[in-house]
Protein backbone atom coordinates (compact mmCIF):
# COMPACT_ATOMS: atom_id res chain seq x y z
CA UNK A 1 0.00 0.00 0.00
CA UNK A 2 1.15 3.54 -0.79
CA UNK A 3 0.15 6.21 1.70
CA UNK A 4 -0.30 9.87 0.79
CA UNK A 5 -0.19 12.91 3.05
CA UNK A 6 -2.55 15.35 1.35
CA UNK A 7 -3.04 18.99 2.27
CA UNK A 8 -6.42 20.12 3.50
CA UNK A 9 -7.75 23.35 2.01
CA UNK A 10 -6.72 25.16 -1.18
CA UNK A 11 -4.90 22.23 -2.84
CA UNK A 12 -7.14 19.40 -1.60
CA UNK A 13 -9.57 19.13 -4.51
CA UNK A 14 -7.06 19.64 -7.32
CA UNK A 15 -4.73 17.09 -5.71
CA UNK A 16 -7.49 14.49 -5.51
CA UNK A 17 -8.53 15.19 -9.10
CA UNK A 18 -4.97 14.78 -10.36
CA UNK A 19 -4.50 11.48 -8.52
CA UNK A 20 -7.86 10.22 -9.81
CA UNK A 21 -6.72 11.00 -13.33
CA UNK A 22 -3.74 8.68 -12.77
CA UNK A 23 -5.87 5.74 -11.79
CA UNK A 24 -5.77 6.23 -8.01
CA UNK A 25 -9.17 5.43 -6.52
CA UNK A 26 -9.83 8.67 -4.61
CA UNK A 27 -13.60 8.28 -4.24
CA UNK A 28 -13.14 7.93 -0.50
CA UNK A 29 -11.82 11.52 -0.42
CA UNK A 30 -15.02 12.88 -1.93
CA UNK A 31 -17.16 11.55 0.91
CA UNK A 32 -18.00 13.96 3.67
CA UNK A 33 -16.20 12.47 6.61
CA UNK A 34 -14.45 13.51 9.77
CA UNK A 35 -12.09 10.57 9.62
CA UNK A 36 -8.48 11.59 9.11
CA UNK A 37 -7.14 8.23 7.93
CA UNK A 38 -8.78 6.97 4.76
CA UNK A 39 -8.19 3.96 2.57
CA UNK A 40 -9.17 3.44 -1.07
CA UNK A 41 -11.83 0.79 -1.72
CA UNK A 42 -9.26 -1.48 -3.42
CA UNK A 43 -6.93 -1.22 -0.42
CA UNK A 44 -4.03 -0.01 -2.60
CA UNK A 45 -3.80 3.53 -1.27
CA UNK A 46 -4.03 5.21 2.11
CA UNK A 47 -4.63 8.92 2.63
CA UNK A 48 -3.97 11.25 5.56
CA UNK A 49 -5.53 14.69 5.38
CA UNK A 50 -3.31 17.12 7.24
CA UNK A 51 -2.58 20.83 7.45
CA UNK A 52 -0.42 21.83 4.46
CA UNK A 53 2.50 22.83 6.69
CA UNK A 54 2.49 19.36 8.28
CA UNK A 55 2.82 17.36 5.04
CA UNK A 56 6.67 17.41 5.03
CA UNK A 57 6.84 16.06 8.59
CA UNK A 58 4.67 13.04 7.71
CA UNK A 59 6.66 12.29 4.57
CA UNK A 60 10.10 12.78 6.13
CA UNK A 61 9.27 10.30 8.89
CA UNK A 62 7.98 7.80 6.33
CA UNK A 63 4.55 7.67 7.95
CA UNK A 64 3.36 8.73 4.50
CA UNK A 65 5.26 7.54 1.41
CA UNK A 66 4.20 10.44 -0.81
CA UNK A 67 2.80 13.89 -0.21
CA UNK A 68 1.56 16.94 -2.05
CA UNK A 69 2.77 20.23 -0.67
CA UNK A 70 3.60 23.77 -1.73
CA UNK A 71 7.24 24.64 -2.45
CA UNK A 72 6.92 27.52 0.04
CA UNK A 73 6.26 24.99 2.82
CA UNK A 74 9.17 22.82 1.65
CA UNK A 75 11.56 25.77 1.76
CA UNK A 76 10.30 26.76 5.19
CA UNK A 77 10.36 23.29 6.73
CA UNK A 78 13.69 22.21 5.19
CA UNK A 79 12.91 18.51 5.64
CA UNK A 80 14.99 15.64 4.31
CA UNK A 81 12.87 14.25 1.46
CA UNK A 82 12.75 13.93 -2.32
CA UNK A 83 10.91 16.37 -4.57
CA UNK A 84 9.75 14.21 -7.43
CA UNK A 85 7.47 16.40 -9.55
CA UNK A 86 6.39 19.98 -10.06
CA UNK A 87 2.61 19.65 -10.15
CA UNK A 88 2.26 23.20 -11.54
CA UNK A 89 -0.68 23.89 -9.28
CA UNK A 90 -1.38 27.08 -7.33
CA UNK A 91 1.57 29.05 -8.68
CA UNK A 92 2.69 32.02 -6.61
CA UNK A 93 5.85 33.89 -5.52
CA UNK A 94 7.51 34.46 -2.15
CA UNK A 95 8.05 38.20 -1.92
CA UNK A 96 9.13 41.00 0.33
CA UNK A 97 6.37 43.59 0.23
CA UNK A 98 5.62 46.87 1.97
CA UNK A 99 5.11 50.54 1.33
CA UNK A 100 7.23 52.01 -1.47
CA UNK A 101 9.06 54.11 1.14
CA UNK A 102 9.92 52.73 4.57
CA UNK A 103 8.15 54.64 7.33
CA UNK A 104 9.43 54.35 10.92
CA UNK A 105 13.06 53.99 9.85
CA UNK A 106 14.35 56.50 12.41
CA UNK A 107 12.82 54.94 15.51
CA UNK A 108 13.13 51.34 14.35
CA UNK A 109 16.69 50.78 13.16
CA UNK A 110 16.05 47.07 12.66
CA UNK A 111 13.85 46.23 9.75
CA UNK A 112 10.76 44.59 11.22
CA UNK A 113 9.57 41.70 9.04
CA UNK A 114 6.16 40.11 9.56
CA UNK A 115 5.86 36.60 8.15
CA UNK A 116 4.59 33.09 8.63
CA UNK A 117 7.79 31.85 6.94
CA UNK A 118 10.06 32.47 9.92
CA UNK A 119 12.91 30.12 8.96
CA UNK A 120 12.95 31.22 5.33
CA UNK A 121 12.90 34.91 6.25
CA UNK A 122 15.82 34.38 8.62
CA UNK A 123 17.81 32.71 5.83
CA UNK A 124 16.88 35.31 3.21
CA UNK A 125 17.95 38.21 5.38
CA UNK A 126 20.98 36.45 6.92
CA UNK A 127 23.43 37.97 4.46
CA UNK A 128 21.71 41.35 4.38
CA UNK A 129 20.56 43.62 7.15
CA UNK A 130 19.67 42.98 10.76
CA UNK A 131 16.02 42.27 11.14
CA UNK A 132 13.43 41.59 13.78
CA UNK A 133 11.01 38.84 12.78
CA UNK A 134 7.40 39.13 13.82
CA UNK A 135 5.82 35.68 13.41
CA UNK A 136 2.17 35.82 12.34
CA UNK A 137 -0.29 33.17 11.21
CA UNK A 138 -2.56 35.03 8.79
CA UNK A 139 -3.57 38.40 7.30
CA UNK A 140 0.10 39.29 7.13
CA UNK A 141 -0.68 42.44 5.09
CA UNK A 142 -2.22 43.97 8.18
CA UNK A 143 1.20 44.25 9.86
CA UNK A 144 2.68 47.11 7.78
CA UNK A 145 -0.71 48.79 7.46
CA UNK A 146 -1.02 49.01 11.24
CA UNK A 147 2.64 49.76 11.88
CA UNK A 148 3.35 46.37 13.52
CA UNK A 149 6.07 45.74 10.91
CA UNK A 150 7.93 47.60 8.17
CA UNK A 151 7.65 44.90 5.53
CA UNK A 152 6.12 41.48 5.08
CA UNK A 153 7.63 38.32 3.65
CA UNK A 154 4.81 36.27 2.21
CA UNK A 155 3.38 34.43 -0.77
CA UNK A 156 1.87 36.64 -3.45
CA UNK A 157 -0.48 35.12 -5.97
CA UNK A 158 -2.29 37.93 -7.83
CA UNK A 159 -1.12 40.85 -5.69
CA UNK A 160 -4.67 42.16 -5.28
CA UNK A 161 -4.60 42.04 -1.47
CA UNK A 162 -1.37 44.01 -1.49
CA UNK A 163 -2.77 46.57 -3.88
CA UNK A 164 -6.00 46.99 -1.93
CA UNK A 165 -3.89 47.92 1.10
CA UNK A 166 -1.52 50.27 -0.68
CA UNK A 167 1.42 47.84 -0.51
CA UNK A 168 3.79 46.90 -3.33
CA UNK A 169 6.15 44.01 -4.00
CA UNK A 170 9.62 45.26 -3.11
CA UNK A 171 11.45 42.11 -4.17
CA UNK A 172 10.58 38.71 -5.60
CA UNK A 173 12.75 36.31 -3.62
CA UNK A 174 11.46 32.95 -4.88
CA UNK A 175 9.40 32.63 -8.04
CA UNK A 176 7.76 29.50 -9.36
CA UNK A 177 6.35 28.46 -6.01
CA UNK A 178 4.02 25.60 -6.96
CA UNK A 179 2.70 22.38 -5.47
CA UNK A 180 5.22 19.52 -5.52
CA UNK A 181 4.94 15.78 -5.24
CA UNK A 182 7.34 14.71 -2.50
CA UNK A 183 8.51 11.24 -1.55
CA UNK A 184 10.01 9.71 1.53
CA UNK A 185 13.66 8.92 0.78
CA UNK A 186 13.45 5.30 1.87
CA UNK A 187 10.03 4.55 0.34
CA UNK A 188 11.18 5.66 -3.12
CA UNK A 189 13.81 2.89 -3.07
CA UNK A 190 12.04 0.18 -1.06
CA UNK A 191 8.65 0.59 -2.78
CA UNK A 192 10.06 1.57 -6.18
CA UNK A 193 7.87 -0.99 -7.95
CA UNK A 194 4.70 0.72 -6.75
CA UNK A 195 5.79 4.35 -6.57
CA UNK A 196 7.73 4.83 -9.81
CA UNK A 197 4.91 3.77 -12.18
CA UNK A 198 2.56 6.10 -10.31
CA UNK A 199 5.00 9.01 -10.65
CA UNK A 200 5.30 8.22 -14.36
CA UNK A 201 1.51 8.32 -14.76
CA UNK A 202 1.43 11.65 -12.89
CA UNK A 203 4.13 13.04 -15.16
CA UNK A 204 2.11 12.04 -18.22
CA UNK A 205 -1.11 13.47 -16.79
CA UNK A 206 0.64 16.79 -16.15
CA UNK A 207 2.00 16.80 -19.65
CA UNK A 208 -1.48 16.35 -21.13
CA UNK A 209 -2.68 19.36 -19.15
CA UNK A 210 -0.13 21.69 -20.66
Amino acid at each position, binding site marked *: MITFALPKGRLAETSAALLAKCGVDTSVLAKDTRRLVLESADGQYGFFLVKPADVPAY*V*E*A*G*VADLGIVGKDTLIEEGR*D*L*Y*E*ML*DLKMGECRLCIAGYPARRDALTNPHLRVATKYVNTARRVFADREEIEIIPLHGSIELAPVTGLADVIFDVVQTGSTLKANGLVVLEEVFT*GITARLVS*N*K*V*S*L*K*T*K*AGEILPLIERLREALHEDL
Partner: protein
Amino acid sequence: MNLKKLPTGVQDILPRECRVLGDVRARLTRAFELNGYDPVLSAAVEYYDTYAGIRSALPQERMFKFTDSDGRLLVLRPDATLSISRIAATKLDAAHARLYYFLDKWDAQNAGGVKSREIIQAGVERLGEEGAFSDAQTIAFAIDCMYAMGLSDCIVDVGHVGCMKGLLEECGLSDARAEEVRASLNAKDALNAERLLKAAGAGEETLAAVRALPTLFGGAEVFARARALTKNARVLAAVDHLEKVHRILADMGYEKNVCFDLGTGKNLSYYSGIVFSGLVREVGAPVLSGGRYDDLADDFGKHIPAVGFAIGLKRVLMALERQGNLPEQPLPDAAIACEEGAEGAADALRRRLTGEGRRVVLAAAYGEGALADLAAAQKYYVTKEGVRRI
Protein backbone atom coordinates in the same frame (compact mmCIF):
# COMPACT_ATOMS: atom_id res chain seq x y z
CA MET B 1 10.32 23.66 34.88
CA ASN B 2 10.09 19.95 35.60
CA LEU B 3 13.65 18.94 36.38
CA LYS B 4 12.80 15.24 36.33
CA LYS B 5 12.30 15.43 32.57
CA LEU B 6 14.93 14.99 29.87
CA PRO B 7 15.87 17.73 27.38
CA THR B 8 14.52 17.48 23.83
CA GLY B 9 15.88 14.81 21.52
CA VAL B 10 17.43 12.42 24.04
CA GLN B 11 15.92 9.28 25.55
CA ASP B 12 16.45 6.83 28.35
CA ILE B 13 16.55 3.22 27.24
CA LEU B 14 14.54 1.07 29.63
CA PRO B 15 15.40 -2.56 30.50
CA ARG B 16 13.19 -4.27 27.90
CA GLU B 17 14.53 -2.16 25.03
CA CYS B 18 18.02 -2.29 26.48
CA ARG B 19 17.95 -6.08 26.38
CA VAL B 20 17.06 -6.01 22.66
CA LEU B 21 19.79 -3.44 22.08
CA GLY B 22 22.24 -5.72 23.88
CA ASP B 23 21.14 -8.65 21.74
CA VAL B 24 21.69 -6.60 18.55
CA ARG B 25 25.13 -5.51 19.78
CA ALA B 26 26.05 -9.13 20.54
CA ARG B 27 25.04 -10.22 17.03
CA LEU B 28 27.04 -7.39 15.50
CA THR B 29 30.09 -8.08 17.66
CA ARG B 30 30.04 -11.67 16.43
CA ALA B 31 29.78 -10.55 12.79
CA PHE B 32 32.58 -7.98 13.25
CA GLU B 33 34.87 -10.43 15.01
CA LEU B 34 34.26 -13.25 12.52
CA ASN B 35 35.26 -10.91 9.70
CA GLY B 36 38.54 -9.81 11.19
CA TYR B 37 37.67 -6.43 12.65
CA ASP B 38 39.34 -5.22 15.87
CA PRO B 39 37.51 -3.20 18.51
CA VAL B 40 38.33 0.43 19.26
CA LEU B 41 36.85 3.17 21.45
CA SER B 42 37.49 6.88 21.23
CA ALA B 43 37.12 9.44 24.01
CA ALA B 44 33.66 11.01 24.20
CA VAL B 45 35.10 14.48 24.85
CA GLU B 46 37.51 16.18 22.46
CA TYR B 47 38.79 19.66 21.70
CA TYR B 48 36.54 21.72 19.49
CA ASP B 49 39.60 22.95 17.58
CA THR B 50 40.49 19.39 16.51
CA TYR B 51 37.52 19.37 14.17
CA ALA B 52 36.97 23.08 13.56
CA GLY B 53 40.13 23.61 11.55
CA ILE B 54 39.97 20.65 9.17
CA ARG B 55 38.67 20.80 5.62
CA SER B 56 35.86 18.39 6.47
CA ALA B 57 34.70 20.38 9.49
CA LEU B 58 31.19 19.70 10.72
CA PRO B 59 28.90 22.72 11.03
CA GLN B 60 29.61 24.18 14.47
CA GLU B 61 25.93 24.61 15.25
CA ARG B 62 25.56 20.82 15.25
CA MET B 63 28.15 20.20 17.98
CA PHE B 64 27.45 20.07 21.71
CA LYS B 65 30.05 22.44 23.20
CA PHE B 66 31.22 23.20 26.69
CA THR B 67 34.30 24.77 28.25
CA ASP B 68 37.18 23.06 30.04
CA SER B 69 38.48 24.43 33.36
CA ASP B 70 41.25 26.23 31.42
CA GLY B 71 38.68 27.88 29.17
CA ARG B 72 39.28 25.73 26.11
CA LEU B 73 36.24 24.71 24.10
CA LEU B 74 35.31 21.02 24.24
CA VAL B 75 32.85 19.02 22.18
CA LEU B 76 30.91 15.83 22.77
CA ARG B 77 31.94 13.35 20.05
CA PRO B 78 30.14 14.71 16.98
CA ASP B 79 31.11 11.90 14.58
CA ALA B 80 32.72 8.51 15.09
CA THR B 81 34.50 8.38 11.73
CA LEU B 82 36.32 11.66 12.44
CA SER B 83 37.57 10.30 15.77
CA ILE B 84 38.69 7.00 14.30
CA SER B 85 40.42 8.71 11.41
CA ARG B 86 42.29 10.86 13.96
CA ILE B 87 43.25 7.76 15.97
CA ALA B 88 44.43 5.94 12.84
CA ALA B 89 46.55 8.87 11.70
CA THR B 90 48.09 9.72 15.06
CA LYS B 91 48.26 6.47 17.05
CA LEU B 92 48.28 3.40 14.81
CA ASP B 93 51.46 2.27 13.09
CA ALA B 94 50.20 -0.45 10.75
CA ALA B 95 49.38 0.56 7.20
CA HIS B 96 46.09 -1.36 7.35
CA ALA B 97 43.48 -1.68 10.05
CA ARG B 98 39.95 -3.00 10.17
CA LEU B 99 38.24 -1.53 13.18
CA TYR B 100 34.78 -1.81 14.72
CA TYR B 101 33.17 0.36 17.35
CA PHE B 102 30.13 0.94 19.47
CA LEU B 103 30.31 4.71 19.84
CA ASP B 104 27.48 7.11 20.37
CA LYS B 105 27.55 10.55 18.82
CA TRP B 106 25.72 13.76 19.55
CA ASP B 107 24.11 16.15 17.11
CA ALA B 108 22.83 19.33 18.74
CA GLN B 109 20.45 20.13 15.90
CA ASN B 110 18.36 17.01 15.69
CA ALA B 111 15.09 17.12 17.54
CA GLY B 112 13.66 13.68 18.12
CA GLY B 113 11.62 11.12 16.19
CA VAL B 114 13.94 9.27 13.82
CA LYS B 115 16.43 12.12 14.33
CA SER B 116 17.72 11.88 17.86
CA ARG B 117 20.29 14.25 19.40
CA GLU B 118 22.01 11.26 20.99
CA ILE B 119 22.72 8.70 18.29
CA ILE B 120 23.49 5.17 19.41
CA GLN B 121 25.76 3.65 16.81
CA ALA B 122 27.84 0.69 15.81
CA GLY B 123 30.19 0.82 12.88
CA VAL B 124 33.26 -0.37 11.04
CA GLU B 125 36.13 1.40 9.31
CA ARG B 126 38.51 -0.25 6.86
CA LEU B 127 41.66 1.82 6.88
CA GLY B 128 44.44 1.67 4.31
CA GLU B 129 42.31 0.04 1.60
CA GLU B 130 41.48 1.23 -1.88
CA GLY B 131 39.62 0.04 -4.93
CA ALA B 132 36.35 -1.43 -6.09
CA PHE B 133 36.88 -4.78 -4.35
CA SER B 134 37.28 -3.07 -0.97
CA ASP B 135 34.17 -0.94 -1.65
CA ALA B 136 32.13 -3.97 -2.72
CA GLN B 137 33.22 -5.95 0.33
CA THR B 138 32.20 -3.10 2.61
CA ILE B 139 28.76 -2.87 1.00
CA ALA B 140 28.33 -6.64 1.13
CA PHE B 141 29.34 -6.64 4.79
CA ALA B 142 26.84 -3.84 5.50
CA ILE B 143 24.10 -6.06 4.04
CA ASP B 144 25.34 -9.03 6.09
CA CYS B 145 25.25 -6.90 9.24
CA MET B 146 21.67 -5.79 8.56
CA TYR B 147 20.53 -9.40 8.27
CA ALA B 148 22.69 -10.44 11.24
CA MET B 149 20.79 -7.96 13.40
CA GLY B 150 17.55 -9.75 12.48
CA LEU B 151 16.24 -7.30 9.88
CA SER B 152 14.52 -8.60 6.76
CA ASP B 153 14.20 -7.26 3.19
CA CYS B 154 17.31 -5.09 3.39
CA ILE B 155 18.48 -2.84 0.58
CA VAL B 156 21.67 -0.84 0.25
CA ASP B 157 21.37 2.21 -2.00
CA VAL B 158 24.77 3.09 -3.53
CA GLY B 159 25.97 6.34 -5.08
CA HIS B 160 29.27 8.09 -5.77
CA VAL B 161 30.15 11.67 -4.87
CA GLY B 162 32.11 11.98 -8.12
CA CYS B 163 28.88 12.22 -10.11
CA MET B 164 27.69 15.39 -8.47
CA LYS B 165 31.11 16.88 -7.76
CA GLY B 166 32.16 16.32 -11.36
CA LEU B 167 29.18 18.23 -12.72
CA LEU B 168 29.49 21.02 -10.18
CA GLU B 169 33.21 21.62 -10.63
CA GLU B 170 32.52 22.37 -14.32
CA CYS B 171 30.55 25.39 -13.17
CA GLY B 172 33.15 27.05 -10.95
CA LEU B 173 30.76 27.69 -8.08
CA SER B 174 31.63 29.23 -4.73
CA ASP B 175 31.59 26.77 -1.80
CA ALA B 176 28.36 28.23 -0.43
CA ARG B 177 26.63 28.08 -3.81
CA ALA B 178 27.92 24.54 -4.47
CA GLU B 179 26.52 23.47 -1.10
CA GLU B 180 23.14 24.95 -2.04
CA VAL B 181 23.15 23.04 -5.33
CA ARG B 182 24.20 19.83 -3.56
CA ALA B 183 21.33 20.16 -1.08
CA SER B 184 18.86 20.74 -3.93
CA LEU B 185 20.11 17.77 -5.94
CA ASN B 186 20.17 15.57 -2.85
CA ALA B 187 16.47 16.42 -2.48
CA LYS B 188 16.02 15.61 -6.21
CA ASP B 189 14.95 19.25 -6.65
CA ALA B 190 16.33 19.65 -10.18
CA LEU B 191 14.38 22.87 -10.69
CA ASN B 192 16.21 24.79 -8.01
CA ALA B 193 19.59 23.27 -8.92
CA GLU B 194 19.04 24.33 -12.52
CA ARG B 195 18.05 27.85 -11.48
CA LEU B 196 21.22 28.22 -9.37
CA LEU B 197 23.49 26.83 -12.08
CA LYS B 198 21.91 28.96 -14.78
CA ALA B 199 22.61 32.04 -12.67
CA ALA B 200 26.24 30.88 -12.39
CA GLY B 201 26.46 30.67 -16.18
CA ALA B 202 26.51 26.88 -16.65
CA GLY B 203 26.31 25.59 -20.23
CA GLU B 204 23.32 23.78 -21.68
CA GLU B 205 25.06 20.39 -21.64
CA THR B 206 25.78 20.70 -17.92
CA LEU B 207 22.23 21.86 -17.25
CA ALA B 208 20.81 18.86 -19.10
CA ALA B 209 23.01 16.52 -17.06
CA VAL B 210 22.02 18.25 -13.82
CA ARG B 211 18.33 17.97 -14.77
CA ALA B 212 18.75 14.24 -15.36
CA LEU B 213 20.95 13.49 -12.33
CA PRO B 214 18.05 13.14 -9.83
CA THR B 215 16.40 10.57 -12.11
CA LEU B 216 19.49 8.36 -12.35
CA PHE B 217 18.50 5.80 -9.77
CA GLY B 218 17.48 2.16 -9.98
CA GLY B 219 19.36 -0.93 -11.15
CA ALA B 220 22.46 -1.37 -13.30
CA GLU B 221 20.70 0.28 -16.27
CA VAL B 222 21.49 3.72 -14.79
CA PHE B 223 25.17 3.41 -15.78
CA ALA B 224 24.43 3.49 -19.50
CA ARG B 225 21.98 6.36 -19.04
CA ALA B 226 24.61 8.35 -17.15
CA ARG B 227 27.27 7.78 -19.82
CA ALA B 228 24.93 9.07 -22.51
CA LEU B 229 24.53 12.34 -20.64
CA THR B 230 27.99 13.72 -20.14
CA LYS B 231 31.61 13.68 -21.25
CA ASN B 232 32.80 14.89 -17.85
CA ALA B 233 35.83 12.74 -16.95
CA ARG B 234 35.16 12.71 -13.21
CA VAL B 235 31.54 11.64 -13.68
CA LEU B 236 32.53 8.91 -16.15
CA ALA B 237 35.22 7.62 -13.78
CA ALA B 238 32.64 7.47 -10.98
CA VAL B 239 30.21 5.56 -13.21
CA ASP B 240 32.97 3.11 -14.26
CA HIS B 241 33.84 2.54 -10.63
CA LEU B 242 30.21 1.95 -9.62
CA GLU B 243 29.77 -0.48 -12.46
CA LYS B 244 32.81 -2.43 -11.27
CA VAL B 245 31.46 -2.45 -7.70
CA HIS B 246 28.16 -3.68 -9.07
CA ARG B 247 29.86 -6.47 -11.03
CA ILE B 248 31.71 -7.66 -7.93
CA LEU B 249 28.60 -7.48 -5.74
CA ALA B 250 26.66 -9.50 -8.33
CA ASP B 251 29.47 -12.05 -8.40
CA MET B 252 29.32 -12.25 -4.59
CA GLY B 253 25.55 -12.87 -4.74
CA TYR B 254 24.31 -9.52 -3.42
CA GLU B 255 22.66 -8.16 -6.57
CA LYS B 256 19.11 -8.35 -5.25
CA ASN B 257 20.05 -6.29 -2.18
CA VAL B 258 21.60 -3.30 -3.94
CA CYS B 259 20.30 -0.41 -5.97
CA PHE B 260 22.07 2.69 -7.27
CA ASP B 261 21.38 6.41 -7.09
CA LEU B 262 23.88 8.62 -8.90
CA GLY B 263 22.12 11.74 -7.60
CA THR B 264 23.13 11.09 -3.98
CA GLY B 265 25.08 13.89 -2.33
CA LYS B 266 25.45 13.29 1.39
CA ASN B 267 25.93 16.32 3.61
CA LEU B 268 29.15 15.04 5.19
CA SER B 269 31.90 16.69 3.19
CA TYR B 270 34.60 14.08 3.88
CA TYR B 271 33.22 11.50 1.48
CA SER B 272 35.43 11.09 -1.59
CA GLY B 273 34.08 8.06 -3.46
CA ILE B 274 31.21 5.62 -3.06
CA VAL B 275 28.49 6.50 -0.55
CA PHE B 276 25.69 4.21 0.54
CA SER B 277 22.66 3.90 2.81
CA GLY B 278 21.02 0.80 4.27
CA LEU B 279 17.24 0.87 3.94
CA VAL B 280 14.28 -1.13 5.17
CA ARG B 281 10.65 -0.33 4.34
CA GLU B 282 9.51 0.03 7.90
CA VAL B 283 11.66 3.04 8.84
CA GLY B 284 11.51 6.28 6.88
CA ALA B 285 15.23 7.07 7.26
CA PRO B 286 18.35 4.98 6.60
CA VAL B 287 19.32 2.50 9.32
CA LEU B 288 22.90 2.44 8.03
CA SER B 289 25.07 5.00 6.30
CA GLY B 290 28.59 4.93 4.96
CA GLY B 291 31.07 5.66 2.25
CA ARG B 292 34.69 6.13 1.21
CA TYR B 293 36.73 8.97 2.70
CA ASP B 294 40.24 8.72 1.27
CA ASP B 295 41.46 12.22 2.19
CA LEU B 296 40.06 12.71 5.67
CA ALA B 297 43.12 11.48 7.56
CA ASP B 298 45.29 13.96 5.61
CA ASP B 299 43.91 16.60 7.95
CA PHE B 300 45.40 14.65 10.86
CA GLY B 301 48.81 14.29 9.18
CA LYS B 302 48.78 10.98 7.30
CA HIS B 303 47.25 9.78 4.05
CA ILE B 304 45.01 6.78 4.77
CA PRO B 305 42.46 5.78 2.15
CA ALA B 306 39.48 4.32 3.98
CA VAL B 307 35.89 3.18 3.75
CA GLY B 308 33.34 2.38 6.43
CA PHE B 309 29.79 2.60 7.68
CA ALA B 310 27.82 3.31 10.82
CA ILE B 311 24.56 1.71 11.92
CA GLY B 312 21.91 3.72 13.80
CA LEU B 313 20.90 1.20 16.43
CA LYS B 314 17.81 3.06 17.61
CA ARG B 315 16.42 2.96 14.07
CA VAL B 316 17.30 -0.73 13.87
CA LEU B 317 15.22 -1.36 17.00
CA MET B 318 12.32 0.56 15.43
CA ALA B 319 12.63 -1.55 12.29
CA LEU B 320 12.83 -4.83 14.23
CA GLU B 321 9.72 -3.90 16.19
CA ARG B 322 7.77 -2.92 13.07
CA GLN B 323 8.92 -6.01 11.16
CA GLY B 324 7.83 -8.19 14.08
CA ASN B 325 11.38 -9.47 14.42
CA LEU B 326 12.00 -8.50 18.05
CA PRO B 327 13.60 -11.37 19.93
CA GLU B 328 11.52 -12.98 22.70
CA GLN B 329 11.93 -11.67 26.23
CA PRO B 330 13.63 -14.59 27.96
CA LEU B 331 12.37 -15.57 31.43
CA PRO B 332 15.00 -16.39 34.02
CA ASP B 333 15.66 -20.13 34.01
CA ALA B 334 15.16 -20.49 37.73
CA ALA B 335 13.86 -18.66 40.79
CA ILE B 336 14.90 -19.66 44.29
CA ALA B 337 13.41 -18.74 47.68
CA CYS B 338 14.31 -20.07 51.10
CA GLU B 339 13.29 -20.04 54.75
CA GLU B 340 15.29 -18.17 57.36
CA GLY B 341 18.35 -20.24 58.28
CA ALA B 342 18.65 -21.89 54.82
CA GLU B 343 20.44 -18.98 53.13
CA GLY B 344 23.65 -20.97 52.67
CA ALA B 345 21.93 -23.88 50.97
CA ALA B 346 19.89 -21.52 48.78
CA ASP B 347 22.98 -19.62 47.67
CA ALA B 348 24.83 -22.88 47.00
CA LEU B 349 21.99 -23.86 44.65
CA ARG B 350 22.20 -20.44 42.96
CA ARG B 351 25.94 -20.87 42.46
CA ARG B 352 25.54 -24.37 41.04
CA LEU B 353 22.86 -23.27 38.54
CA THR B 354 24.66 -20.08 37.41
CA GLY B 355 27.78 -22.22 37.10
CA GLU B 356 25.83 -24.29 34.56
CA GLY B 357 25.14 -21.11 32.66
CA ARG B 358 21.56 -20.69 33.80
CA ARG B 359 19.97 -17.36 34.69
CA VAL B 360 18.82 -17.44 38.31
CA VAL B 361 16.98 -15.06 40.65
CA LEU B 362 17.38 -15.57 44.40
CA ALA B 363 14.51 -13.97 46.30
CA ALA B 364 15.44 -11.43 48.97
CA ALA B 365 12.35 -12.22 51.07
CA TYR B 366 11.94 -15.38 53.13
CA GLY B 367 9.18 -17.91 52.61
CA GLU B 368 7.67 -19.87 49.77
CA GLY B 369 5.32 -16.95 49.08
CA ALA B 370 8.28 -14.96 47.70
CA LEU B 371 8.30 -17.24 44.63
CA ALA B 372 4.85 -16.01 43.59
CA ASP B 373 6.34 -12.62 42.67
CA LEU B 374 9.09 -14.10 40.46
CA ALA B 375 8.55 -15.21 36.87
CA ALA B 376 10.85 -18.11 35.94
CA ALA B 377 10.86 -21.35 34.01
CA GLN B 378 11.65 -23.40 37.16
CA LYS B 379 11.13 -22.58 40.84
CA TYR B 380 12.88 -23.99 43.92
CA TYR B 381 12.12 -23.61 47.61
CA VAL B 382 15.01 -24.31 49.98
CA THR B 383 14.43 -25.28 53.61
CA LYS B 384 16.86 -26.52 56.28
CA GLU B 385 15.67 -30.02 55.35
CA GLY B 386 16.49 -29.72 51.65
CA VAL B 387 15.46 -28.38 48.22
CA ARG B 388 11.94 -28.70 46.90
CA ARG B 389 10.91 -28.07 43.27
CA ILE B 390 7.73 -26.07 43.08
